[in-house]
């Protein structure tokens, strides 16, 4: 009876087996072929996704915060079946242009990066501060990561870029959001957020 290797069960003859080298080599080659095919199928990217927001998001003068919405999917991997048995995509697909929270389908540590362009405001709008921050299941508590600017009236700049990144420990089904926050000293001027992206990478169990 042929024996086999410990990890991938590659067959080889043992003394006492019929002296049939062609058959032994064919059996071995076929098993190597199968093992490498399986390995190739497993060699796919980690759970990761990126979504883009293309529709301007406006925080009205009556509000101080607003979750960004996502309209386009840049990528959303289906993870390796060898690690996650026939699971769904990394993040629940975005099918509604009003989607403002992203449901991750795998637990673990996720690195999340968000960036957004903010339209310049005029001095008379009395905007003191514009910030971006992450939310988990709709809440910014506990704090995850935040970035802000007070220089939102610079005449030469039509947009300001804000970004933030953080590692979040998430459970499958958790909802991740990225939102704008506005602080005004007076008045009720709206603030417009334009092109934006959010990238989610699962890094560890």
């Amino acid at each position, binding site marked *: 009876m042929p*024996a*086999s*290797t*410990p*990890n*991938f069960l*590659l*067959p*080889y*003859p*043992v*003394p006492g*087996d019929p*002296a049939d*080298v062609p058959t*032994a*080599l064919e059996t*071995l080659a076929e098993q*190597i072929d199968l*093992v*490498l095919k399986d*390995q190739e199928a*497993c*060699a796919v990217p*980690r759970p990761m996704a990126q979504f883009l927001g293309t529709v301007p998001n406006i925080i009205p003068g009556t509000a101080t915060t607003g979750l960004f919405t996502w309209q386009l999917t840049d990528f959303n991997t289906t993870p*390796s079946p*060898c*690690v996650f048995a026939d699971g769904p995509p990394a993040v629940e697909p975005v099918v509604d242009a009003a989607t403002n929270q992203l449901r991750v389908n795998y637990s673990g*540590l996720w*690195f999340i*990066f968000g960036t957004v362009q903010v339209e310049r405001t005029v001095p008379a709008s009395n905007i*003191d*501060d514009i*910030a971006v*921050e992450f939310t988990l299941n709709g809440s910014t508590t*506990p*704090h*995850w*990561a*935040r*970035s*802000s*600017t*007070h*220089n939102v009236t610079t005449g030469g700049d039509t947009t300001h870029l804000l*970004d*933030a*990144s*953080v*590692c*979040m*420990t998430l459970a499958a089904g958790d909802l991740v959001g990225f939102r704008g926050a506005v*602080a005004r*000293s007076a008045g009720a001027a709206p603030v417009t957020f334009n092109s934006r992206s959010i990238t989610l*990478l699962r*890094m*560890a*169990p």
Partner: protein
Amino acid sequence: MGNTPERNYPYPEYATANNAPAQIQSFATAVDTDILSFLQQPRQAANAYPSARVWRAVGNQAIANNTSVTLTYTAETFDNNSFFDIGVSTTNVVVNTAGVYLIGCSVTMQADGSATGAAALILMSSGALVQNPIGTSRDLHATRDTSLSGTTLHRVITTPETLTMFVRHNHGAGLNAAFAQMSVTRIA
């Protein structure tokens, strides 16, 4: 016996004594070990790369004027490679495995009623080609907190390598740093 040039798989040559079972076993074993070491194990490891997140969960840290102050952390929310030991240091994130790391960091400076000056957040490394791989700065505001953040890729060549963040400002008087966090995860 000969060996293939790239993977070092053994094979019998014409002058090799005829022993097909042993020769086929040697070849099969070499392939088996190779697939495990260079395909399966690295792929599995890539789904659990060294990562950590440390943060200031409570309290403030005083930041003197015109002084580079290293930020302290009060807790970690994730750590799978002994990055942070609060019993040893409240400031150091120690990378123990070489590689390329994705790093995100942020801090919020509390307003104190005066808008004078600006603040900067700098990520510092104890080694590597660039010891301050990322920094960012913002003008301060009289009544609104100022949140600074940065994201970068950073290669760690020699371990252990210590990562820290420091804050510096020219407000004219001391300020407080409130929430701060550093996220570190290996990607290659």
